[in-house]
């Protein structure tokens, strides 16, 4: 697969070959039970980073090559059979399951396949460090420098007279899951912010995420207010929201988007949380966006996997797909982001977005709204900044949600929140095929590297943790890798319209299942030649012709200059006709 091609070869020189190798003579001993082409015999190799399976007696050569990070579960299936076969099932985070069978080992070496897998696939559970800390590849660019919060806020055109960058969280004392640099209204003091932090869940106070360059309408993110059953109020919090509204002269109203279904928001009052009452926050209108929690999403993805892997039931495909509710969740998230973007863009109103803790649904909504509103985030580097900012610095709990290197696959904290966000982005790229600088492969690469644990980017739960673990110092950033081969990720059709706002259509009729991600392991669903290849060829053709014209022009210029009749050996004329009906 593509991800293996890119990361795999680079790794091999640095990865420690702490290996289990099925000895050469036993190459035929391992059988991979492929759900598509049936049993395949070959050799299995496990390193501390990945798993290879090679089968050479088959045409075309069949192989598997995956980072151990994608494994969420390794288990023995059934007891040893009468023939002495041992069977392993590997459940992967990237929508596939693998199954290997081999003979019951006669010596202790062979026994270790399972153990080696258990050890290296789940280093965290074994008190070892993730492979990202061993990986020492050097890239021309340092991806850890992609995001500089101050430069980003400057780019947005933060008005100094209404907003300031506070250092109150410099040492993560105010909120340990927030970044060090926070933007708040100038009228609010750090002391007031501290009071606000005690009123917001996990201390995640309302801070600026994005500001409209013209209307100054702001997108502000937060966690739920700790209203509780008694309807607690916080003067400073009310003042802060008023100040946010006042910072935008265009509107005397503001919207608070609570991502949750109203029932859930109300239920949170029992646990001390809740939502802003319209009495306490005058001029603010509260809207519930009806997006479900991480558990519902996890269950939905589990069902989706059942429906797409390995076999697709053709005649019930659509109703099966519907029963997973996956696209319905996507629709709700996109619809929520659309409403936010609409209020900011069309209504010129500032908005506050929160869910319960403000680190799952909130970044989904804010980052999608930002992609709709700001074309910068639709470029490759801009998208990296968006992820670094809305997801990583604001503490989306990647470690918990993905469970890097952790064998506890039933952990209720795992949830495909980030995958869901990338899916939403993909839906937008489908609807606006020329509005994004990056291509589908870019999105897939991000998801593959999210699980691979090759890069440090998605490790830990917060900025503070990453600093504590010295992740930037000891690991390589995914953006180092990406930005060193940008041409792989460029959408050939990209047109840069700096001020265009995208309003996607959120009807289910226009949403599609992301087949090239979720069903990519099914060889039948793999396109032989993706259409974007055509576009690429076209671009190459143009470049070639441009070069040729320039050459000829130079040649002509030289000739006239020297006015000699002699001609240097002209370059071979090998222009093939453009194979395009124009």
């Amino acid at each position, binding site marked *: 697969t593509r991800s293996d091609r890119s990361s795999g070869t680079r790794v091999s020189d640095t990865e420690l070959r702490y290996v289990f190798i099925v000895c050469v003579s036993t190459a035929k001993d391992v059988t991979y039970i492929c759900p598509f082409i049936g049993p395949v015999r070959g050799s299995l190799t496990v390193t501390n980073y990945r798993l290879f399976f090679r089968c050479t007696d088959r045409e075309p050569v069949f192989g598997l090559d995956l980072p151990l990070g994608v494994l969420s579960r390794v288990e023995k299936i059934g007891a040893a059979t009468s023939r002495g076969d041992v069977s392993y099932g590997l459940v992967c985070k990237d929508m596939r399951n693998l199954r290997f069978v081999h003979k019951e080992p006669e010596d202790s070496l062979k026994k270790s396949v399972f153990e080696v897998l258990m050890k290296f696939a789940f280093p965290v559970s074994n008190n070892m460090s993730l492979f990202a800390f061993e990986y020492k590849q050097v890239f021309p660019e340092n991806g850890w420098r992609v995001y500089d919060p101050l430069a980003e806020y400057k780019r947005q055109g933060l008005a100094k007279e209404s907003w300031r960058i506070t250092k109150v969280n410099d040492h993560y004392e105010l909120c340990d899951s927030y970044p060090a640099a926070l933007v708040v209204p100038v009228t609010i003091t750090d002391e007031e912010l501290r009071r606000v932090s005690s009123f917001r869940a996990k201390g995640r106070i309302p801070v600026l995420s994005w500001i409209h360059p013209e209307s100054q309408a702001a997108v502000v993110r937060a966690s739920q207010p700790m209203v509780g059953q008694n309807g607690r109020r916080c003067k400073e919090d009310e003042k802060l929201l008023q100040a946010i509204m006042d910072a935008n002269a265009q509107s005397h109203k503001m919207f608070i988007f609570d991502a949750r279904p109203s029932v*859930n928001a109300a239920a949170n009052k029992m646990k001390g949380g809740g939502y802003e009452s319209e009495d306490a926050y005058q001029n603010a209108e509260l809207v519930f966006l009806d997006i479900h929690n991480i558990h519902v999403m996890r269950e939905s993805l589990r069902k989706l996997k059942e429906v797409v892997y390995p076999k697709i039931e053709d005649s019930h495909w659509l109703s099966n797909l519907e029963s997973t509710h996956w696209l319905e969740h996507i629709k709700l998230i996109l619809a929520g982001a659309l409403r936010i973007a609409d209020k900011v863009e069309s209504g010129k109103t500032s908005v506050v977005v929160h869910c319960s803790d403000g680190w799952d649904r909130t970044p989904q909504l804010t980052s999608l709204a930002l992609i709709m509103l700001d074309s910068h985030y639709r470029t490759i580097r801009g998208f990296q900044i968006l992820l670094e900012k809305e997801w990583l610095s604001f503490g989306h709990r990647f470690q918990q949600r993905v469970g890097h290197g952790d064998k506890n696959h039933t952990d209720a904290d795992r949830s495909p929140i980030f995958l869901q966000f990338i899916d939403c982005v993909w839906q937008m790229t489908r609807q606006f095929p020329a509005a994004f600088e990056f291509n589908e492969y870019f999105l897939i690469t991000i998801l593959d590297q999210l699980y691979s644990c090759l890069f440090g980017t998605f490790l*830990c739960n917060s900025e503070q943790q990453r600093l504590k673990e010295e992740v930037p110092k000891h690991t390589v950033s995914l953006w180092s890798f990406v930005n060193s081969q940008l041409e792989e990720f460029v959408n050939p059709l990209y047109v840069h319209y700096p001020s265009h706002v995208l309003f996607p259509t959120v*009807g289910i009729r226009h949403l599609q299942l992301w087949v090239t991600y979720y069903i990519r392991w099914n060889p039948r669903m793999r396109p032989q030649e993706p259409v974007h290849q*055509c576009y690429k060829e076209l671009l190459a053709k143009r470049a070639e012709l441009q070069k040729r014209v320039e050459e000829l022009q130079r040649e002509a210029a030289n000739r006239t200059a020297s006015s000699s009749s002699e001609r240097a050996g002209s370059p071979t004329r090998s222009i093939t006709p453009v194979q395009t*009906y124009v």
Partner: protein
Amino acid sequence: MLSLGSVGAKSTKPSFVSYVTPEEIKLEKEPPKIEKHPDLLPGEVEFCCANPILKYTQDDLSQRGIFGTLFCTNFRVTFISDEKSQEETTKTFKNKLYGENDIPLMCVDHIYGVYDEKKKLITGGLVKNKYPSKMIIHCKDLRVFQFCLTFTKEEDAKKIFQGIAHHCLEEKSLKCVFAFSYSGTPSPGTELSSCREMQRKRETILFDSPEDWTQEMKRTRANCRLVTENENFELSQRYIIRHFTANISSIKCYYYLNYKVHIWCWSHHSGCALFKASLPPVTQEDGDFQKHLDIMINAVAHNYLYSAKTEDLSESLPTIQDIQQSYNKFKQFFLIENSTDFWLSDVKWFSSLESSGWLDIIRQCLQKAVEVVECLEKDNTNVLITEEEGTDLCCVISSLVQIMLDPYYRTLMGFQSLVQKEWVAGCHAFLDRCNHLHQKDKECHSPIFLLFLECVWQLVQQHSPAFQFSETYLTVLSDSVDVPVFSTFLFNSAHHRESVMKAESPLAQSSPLSCPTVWDWSVQFDSKAQNFFFNPLYSEKVKHEKAVRKAHKPKHQRQLSLPSTAFKPPSKKGFFKDETDSLKKMLRVKRLSRWMGSPDSPAATTRGFYESWQQRPLDYHGLLLPCLDGPAVRVWMQRYLRWIPEVHIMGGGSVAVMTKLMELLSQVQDLKCVLEQRDSSQAVKLDHRPYIQHRLLSFGSSGRLSSSFPFAYSRNRSFKPIIPTGLMQSLMVSDSLASQEDEASSFVSLV
């Protein structure tokens, strides 16, 4: 791409739509009567009109609209706004015959009346006395019109309602179809007709002359003979094949089967061929039937040593009634009257789609076609497909097979010729199937041709660079079926056509009457608009390459791939007479055993065929197979969603890709021009391919176009997102997960 809101909001374009609610208008004085009349086509006659009529705009929930006059003519129902819209003229993709407020009478699918808030389907009986306050017209091209009749005088309202209902719903005779009035008018310059004839020859092959068939047989190197005995339709009365081609021996056979004959469709380069035939249901004389079948198969297989396979499509594919029912269900999902309906139906979208079964029928047809392709391509057997009439699913399957196998049919002209060959000359009963005459007998209506276009669309969608035509072309073609101007889709057979035309001819001078064929696209679109029919990404075949390929293939393969592995020739020396005889006997056994009997096996066998094809490098000028797995068969979004404002992607959709592509292509072309000029100045002749004229379009500012381009124009809608209503109505997650807390309190720290 949208322009930023600041731009969108500032756009102070004068609004030509009067956004007055019905309540408001009552307060106002009677609007000044403006006499407006539609621009009539030659031969078009106005029947009745009424004013003022309010036409609701679909754009939003509030029942607002435009006032104007409603007309009914012998061609269409048309609405003319009181305020003249300028947009109409600026359209780049304008149909010359009917505009966005015109509904050709044939295109009317159903009319509903709203009586006291109750929506009722209008049938003959309801028309009599009462007229509804609101009339809703569903069109076959999936447009929905809503007219309010309460503002006009009672008698006018009654008249227009009855007029429209009468002309759209009542059974009528073929002669009343507008095409006969339209073509009756003298066309400018009759001497041009011969010239046009010439032009036509170069383009779409109509298959209405022996030469066309001979040409086609030559092209495919078919080893068949043209039978001319049926030139005057004497041999067979019901099933009319004007010129049919068949194996030599079959001449005899069709005397036995005097009603049905099999007809050659296409020959594979290996020499085997595809035939289709009508097959009567098994009757009392079973022996006779068996004999006939035997003769047919013999005739098909005789030429070569190949076995022949027969496939009775009526056994394995849905009936035309099933197809009709399924489509009726399916189309309902797109005939949306307001956005509440839209969002309500959005929730159950996938399961509704599935319950209609339409996509599954498409899959089955493509699947069957792949099976036939496998026989021709892999097993090199002759294939005879049969069906009771031999003019419905036979046409679908045979055309699909040819598109998959023969790149010629993936060009625009090739495709049109294919439709002529298999459908028009192949006697598909367009008149009955499309129900152009509103006959009450529902049994024979069925959207078979549309089903074929749907299948082609799936192929285009999956392998777009292989097709010269675009999906817009297919959409327009599907609409044109219901435009009563063209002769192409107006008759049940060539014989039918001939006899009707002859009967009509005394009316129009002496020469037989001729209405334009649908392939004369200039009747509907100017040349600029016709550019939308072409796929800019079509990869044209490089000429010399083709020559090389052709030289290689034909003869050697024939022997290598002889019957199939089970019947491998016994010796290496080739075939001599006695050997072949015994082989033939063996083959007979296989022939007669029905092929692929059990219903579940074909999918499994073709699966392997598809997979091995898929592993080969893709050649857009070679065999093309569709992927038929669940997610791969899709809804033809352009055709079905183009009129629904809720799903228009402002500034997005495929237009965005097209714009960029056009730009790139024109740059490439300009560069090539520069190069060529340089080269010719250096007296070097390089590439002799003539430049095809700029088929490039400029869409203007693509930022303002929506995904429904070039069909519906969302007008006057500022860049407002469409926010769904009633989101939560059915996403009720029933299990306990929904109410769980997000955070389990455990905290996993990184080691």
